[in-house]
């Protein structure tokens, strides 16, 4: 073909071609060996046994050699689940107020005037950079640091979850606030109110429903992350899954998985219910007749008692989480705690500037800094050269391959799941034989729900066990979790947009798939891309730690350095991963502002 003919062919296909080229680069980096079992093992037998156990979950211990007085399996699992819930609740209850304060500082809606932009940017940008940093480092890494710095007690796990979650909540809260219409706030400031009054009277009430529902979603995420903390030895559901899987008690694994999925589905369901009540409000049920007073109106005002009850119930549950169960902090003598912190500080200080003694004074640290500052550059260069650069490239390749796979799968499944298409009346138009579509839609939506309910790390652990240690089980784990999320987010975008030309496609005899791929999806492409980037950022964050399961990526080296307690190296590798996330964040920010116009 001539160059001009190539350009014409490429036309709007460039996005697909570019994606295919990037995926090919990922395959080149990660290798083509999907299964990597040790010689002589029978991978299919293990997989068959594992998936076969899905139909016969265990209700009692599968270990025959347990003593008679051992705690029964189900009550052990129950207390692990309660502990998982407790950590998630406490972490979320700490992250929300922190997210609110930081989100407020990162927002521009409370600024008194437009002219104060320069002054308030001095607060806003450092806060945003701080938020980027704390949320870019995975909770597992924070847990590794905190366990070493403060000791092994429940509050450590809660803090490790709360810190990155506060960063995420603050970022999303500030975006929700900034996206609220400014007119109501303007009316308040125009009538003499201050910027803070405008914020409290107009912005916060308008943003509150979205902020509450997002907080509930974060609680759901905290529950998944709390379960994953089990993989570094914290006693949550993750740890019982890890132990059962390693002992090949697959029935126990499936029971724990089912219970985790059901719990997450219940939380997701309650979030959906609360969101609906918050956004729609409660209509007036009692009329007051023609002759009424202010008091009559107040007494018969629409009040959502169920929502109030839910609010009170949440408060009671959170207070109980603090009150009951193992003590959050195990008191340690002050000197011992200080020594522990000092040792951690030495370990996390880059090697060339770390003091010789693990417990050192500030003066000794300062002296070590002055002695070794010149070698800091060499230390960074060495770590970057071997193995930083390669590990980072592999981590990026894993995250990119995963999001491309998830995106492709979601693009194939989405039209089957849409409530507006998978029905007897697609886009409100009469159609013959829609029963099958309705049933398939229900099934695909169910698949999305289940795939996103299980955390990536858990999928990865199970898949590495079944497929052997290579990059691909990790990629598949990330893709599996994200296909459920992308499927839901993309579905919501299409369901909320006007049918437009898609109806015309059906009108002229086209099918549901034609309507989706020729009209609905192209119209929603920008929003699709936005969510695609947002999930890539999350894949990158997860890919950084998934390597801990055994593939030469950042997580793999973090895992090795963890064994040697080289926290300075762990920090370096974590910051490498975080830097990619910050870049991704900037790209998605730019994309968002471009889409907003």
């Amino acid at each position, binding site marked *: 073909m001539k160059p001009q003919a190539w350009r014409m062919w490429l036309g709007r296909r460039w996005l697909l071609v570019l994606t295919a080229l990037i995926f090919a680069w990922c395959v080149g980096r990660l290798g083509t060996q999907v299964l990597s079992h040790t010689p002589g093992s029978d991978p299919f037998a293990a997989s068959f046994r594992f998936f076969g156990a899905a139909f016969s979950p265990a209700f009692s211990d599968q270990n025959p050699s347990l003593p008679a007085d051992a705690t029964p399996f189900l009550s052990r699992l129950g207390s692990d689940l309660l502990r998982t819930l407790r950590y998630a609740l406490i972490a979320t209850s700490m992250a929300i107020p922190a997210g609110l304060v930081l989100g407020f500082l990162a927002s521009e809606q409370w600024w008194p005037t437009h002219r104060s932009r320069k002054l308030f940017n001095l607060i806003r940008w450092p806060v945003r950079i701080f938020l980027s940093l704390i949320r870019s480092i995975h909770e597992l890494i924070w847990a590794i640091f905190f366990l070493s710095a403060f000791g092994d007690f429940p509050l450590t796990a809660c803090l490790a979850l709360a810190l990155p979650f506060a960063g995420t909540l603050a970022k999303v809260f500030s975006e929700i606030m900034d996206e609220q219409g400014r007119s*109501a706030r*303007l009316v*308040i400031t125009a*009538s*003499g109110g*201050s910027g803070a009054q405008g914020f409290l*009277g107009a912005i916060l*009430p308008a943003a509150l429903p979205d902020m509450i529902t997002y907080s509930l979603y974060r609680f759901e995420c905290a529950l998944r992350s709390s379960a994953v903390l089990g993989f570094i030895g914290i006693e949550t559901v993750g740890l019982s899954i890890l132990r059962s899987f390693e002992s090949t008690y697959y029935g126990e694994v499936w029971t724990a998985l089912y219970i985790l999925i059901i719990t997450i589905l219940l939380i997701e369901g309650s979030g959906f219910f609360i969101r609906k009540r918050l956004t729609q409000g409660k209509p007036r049920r009692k009329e007051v007749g023609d002759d009424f007073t202010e008091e009559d*109106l107040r007494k018969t005002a629409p009040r959502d008692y169920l929502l109030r009850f839910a609010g009170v119930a949440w408060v009671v549950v959170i207070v109980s989480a603090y009150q009951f169960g193992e003590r959050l902090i195990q008191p340690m003598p002050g000197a011992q705690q200080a020594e522990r912190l000092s040792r951690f500080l030495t370990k996390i200080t880059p090697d060339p500037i770390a003091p010789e003694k693990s417990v050192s004074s500030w003066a000794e640290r300062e002296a070590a800094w002055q002695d070794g500052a010149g070698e800091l550059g060499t230390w960074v260069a060495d770590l970057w050269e071997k193995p930083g650069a390669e590990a980072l490239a592999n981590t990026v390749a894993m995250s990119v391959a995963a999001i491309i796979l998830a995106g492709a799968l979601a693009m194939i499944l989405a039209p089957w799941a849409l409530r507006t298409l998978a029905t007897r009346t697609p886009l409100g138009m009469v159609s013959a034989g829609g029963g099958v579509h309705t049933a398939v839609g229900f099934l695909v939506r169910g698949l999305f729900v289940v795939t996103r309910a299980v955390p990536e790390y858990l999928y990865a652990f199970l898949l590495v066990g079944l497929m052997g240690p290579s990059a691909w089980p990790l990629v598949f784990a990330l893709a599996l979790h994200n296909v459920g999320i992308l499927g839901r987010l993309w579905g919501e975008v299409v369901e909320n947009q006007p049918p437009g030309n898609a109806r015309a496609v059906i009108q002229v005899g086209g099918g549901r798939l034609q309507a989706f791929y020729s009209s609905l999806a192209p119209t929603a492409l920008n929003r699709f891309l936005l969510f695609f980037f947002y999930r890539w950022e999350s894949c990158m964050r997860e890919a950084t730690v998934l390597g801990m399961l055994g593939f030469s990526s950042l997580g793999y080296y973090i895992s090795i350095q963890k064994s040697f307690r080289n926290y300075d190296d762990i920090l370096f590798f974590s910051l490498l991963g975080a830097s990619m996330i910050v870049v991704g964040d900037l790209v998605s920010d730019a994309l968002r502002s471009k889409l907003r116009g």
Partner: protein
Amino acid sequence: MSVISVNDVSHQFGATRALSRVAFDIAPGEQVALIGASGSGKTTLLRLLGLQQKPSSGQILVLGCDLQSAKSEELRSTRARVGMLPQDLGLVANLRVIQNVVLGRSGRRNLITTVRDLLWPRKADREEIFQILARMGVAAKMYDRTDSLSGGQQQRVALSRTLYQGAEILLADEPLSAVDPARARDVLKLLTGLSNEQGSTLVVSLHQVALAREFFPRVIGLKAGEVVFDGQPDDAQLSSLYDL
């Protein structure tokens, strides 16, 4: 003595000139329609009259307050006497009607009392708001969510907010933009009627020349940021106003 005095005011956004050497006075209780095409400078002028922005040059005095030299406290107390009715009404959709109205007095409250008014309005305030809403014909909706009201009812709530504010000057930006022609007259009747009752000054921006002429004793015509007409148009002048 005028309540609004605009002296040789020009305003620019970057390289774009929004207003050019505008000058007029408005007397207490006067009702004025600002007419002109989109982009003629009506909204910019209303923002300047609402003391929300300083003009690039010239002087604006609102109730004796000069934005160029006013201290923060003076500015705040003057703004508390000027009501704004933006095009989209500026209501918080998920708050109750009473909460939206109570925010009208933010200029006379501090942060704590604003929160108190929002969550637990005092009996006297509740009674006063009830009376205002009854006058506006939406009392029955006092405790309903604002977004459950029709467009017309929401407009009345927004007006109630300025009444509760006790505004001496009301600035309304295109109040007919989302109103069907049949209801446009009702809205203008309501606005001018309230202004007559309260003795308050009314400045409304409009596109509809005929309605401006019918309801307002004084019409200010703007074209490309300049005042091209000021007064009560007669039949001969009417056709040139249609060209704005």
